[in-house]
């Protein structure tokens, strides 16, 4: 595949990242809006810019904290760009960076923040079923049968993954153990100081077979932010910009159809996204040094890694082992912050930040010399996304 004619590769860069303290669900001392402000202010401090520099806002998953309110609170003079990525779950985490990059590249805005805030303790929980006495539409095809939560919505894809491709449940376990292993070196992680043993994984309760408790993401309070500017401006701010090599979003045919009728059922939904992402970024899976793969559920991680070219259906059982997935020694270092399973479930923006951190060389589980860093977001939801970041060396 040749290069794209108008790729964003190397023309925009992440100049700042920010996170709040990550809390267990319901433990945030701050309202959700304050969490988002704190994350954006932290990203501005990281970038070395005045917060009033921000002139664009991108979020996803119907974030409750609107650009108008944020812009006012940050003392910004103007909003030049405001964007909401459609779709549920964390499918938009990398897409928000894509949208921010598009705004900068098109000249719509100069300094765009991608952000996400969640305080599930102050609003509804994701893992909780419908509370109404009647139900209509697509949900009526599942809820009366006790299928209501995200885990239940996606478990049967994993059952079928095992059946169709001979994938072992041990791959799910390896993904979970690697995340918890990495979290033990990451003081930001909610599961810092709470290691997970193989025995504890095996003994953990089923949420819904084939998912154990530790196959399912956390529910957290917190916020995260990523600031994107043009490559030229980024070089004025830092001698070590993290370039956006590629960022894509999408979904396969009829990915949002009701009642588990997607024509291609056993997929992370990343299949149509990935070829163009690599084409845009000008790299191949073999060039990627470190991977952050969104864990709503570990089964989706296995699908994502296969569909992103890091292993095949045939090699997955051999490649996706604990030893291979841990930094710095593994061949495929995965979710090096602890990810959604053990750092924080910030709808994937924490994984985007960890991908940036790896290129900067500042991860708590640093992959030595990492130059190309991959992240995906929200596997199995209707519209998913992925991004690749790289250092100046990659651009040559």
């Amino acid at each position, binding site marked *: 595949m040749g290069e794209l004619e108008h790729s964003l590769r190397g023309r925009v860069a992440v100049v700042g990242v920010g996170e709040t303290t990550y809390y267990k669900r319901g433990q945030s001392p701050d309202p959700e809006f304050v969490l988002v402000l704190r994350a954006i202010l932290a990203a501005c401090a990281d970038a070395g810019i005045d917060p009033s520099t921000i002139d664009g806002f991108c979020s996803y998953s119907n974030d409750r904290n609107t650009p108008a309110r944020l812009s006012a609170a940050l003392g910004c003079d103007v909003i030049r760009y405001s964007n909401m990525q459609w779709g549920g779950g964390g499918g938009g985490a990398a897409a928000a960076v894509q949208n921010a990059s598009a705004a900068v590249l098109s000249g719509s805005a100069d300094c765009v923040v991608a952000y996400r805030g969640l305080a599930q303790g102050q609003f509804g929980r994701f*893992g*909780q*079923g*419908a509370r*109404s*006495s*009647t*139900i*209509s*539409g*697509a*949900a*009526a*095809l*599942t*809820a*009366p*049968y*006790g*299928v*209501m*939560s995200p*885990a*239940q919505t996606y*478990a*049967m*894809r994993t*059952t*079928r993954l095992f*059946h169709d491709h001979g994938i072992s449940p041990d791959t799910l376990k390896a993904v979970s153990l690697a995340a918890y292993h990495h979290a033990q070196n990451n003081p930001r992680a909610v599961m810092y100081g709470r290691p997970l043993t193989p025995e504890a994984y095996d003994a953990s*309760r*089923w*949420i*819904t*077979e*084939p998912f154990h408790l530790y196959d399912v993401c956390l529910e957290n309070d917190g916020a995260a932010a990523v600031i994107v500017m043009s490559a030229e401006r980024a070089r004025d701010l830092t001698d070590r910009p993290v370039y956006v090599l590629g960022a894509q979003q999408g979904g396969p045919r*009829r990915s949002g*159809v*009701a*009642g*588990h*009728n997607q024509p291609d*059922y056993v997929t992370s939904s990343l299949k149509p996204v990935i070829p163009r992402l690599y084409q845009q970024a000008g790299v191949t899976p073999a060039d990627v040094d470190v991977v952050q793969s969104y864990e709503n559920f570990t089964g989706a991680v296995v699908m994502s890694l296969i569909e992103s070219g890091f292993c095949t259906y045939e090699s997955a059982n051999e490649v996706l082992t604990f030893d291979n997935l841990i930094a710095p020694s593994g061949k495929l270092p995965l979710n090096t912050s602890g990810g959604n399973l053990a750092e924080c479930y910030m709808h994937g923006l924490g994984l985007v930040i960890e991908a940036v951190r790896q290129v900067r060389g500042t991860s708590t589980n640093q992959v030595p010399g990492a130059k190309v860093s991959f992240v995906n977001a929200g596997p199995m939801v209707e519209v998913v996304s992925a991004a690749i970041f790289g250092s100046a060396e990659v651009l040559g």
Partner: protein
Amino acid sequence: MSDYVLPEGLPAPVPARDGLDRPYWEGTRRHELWVQHCPECGTWQWGPEWNCHGCRSFAIGWDQVAPEGVLYSWQRPWHPVHGALADAVPYTVVLVELPHAGGVRMVGNLFGDPMQPFAIGDRVEAVFEDHDDSPTPFTLVQWRVLR
């Protein structure tokens, strides 16, 4: 009613006000299974949509299909996601493929012991579960493994 696979108290399905799924839910009350079927191009379609995703025709209609299929996938919830399920776990959810209706899939519960042996590929038949005493009477479609 102890004959139900899951206890009463889960959300009761009611046809959408826009009428899109009415033929399906009315069919279940008669113990019939109805699925969208395009008279223009022959596409079978599920869940209900306003047009045919095969040929874009707005004339997509409905056909009655045999209430039987093949077990395509499954899960067994142990964590109760709803108060009504607190004493009802585990239960088994099945995804059933209807090969004679273009391979459309339907979600339901496995009828009988949730721990009974079964496998992907098993033939299953529908069990129509009437909830006549509900304020909004409805019928669910559960699935029994054919031995």
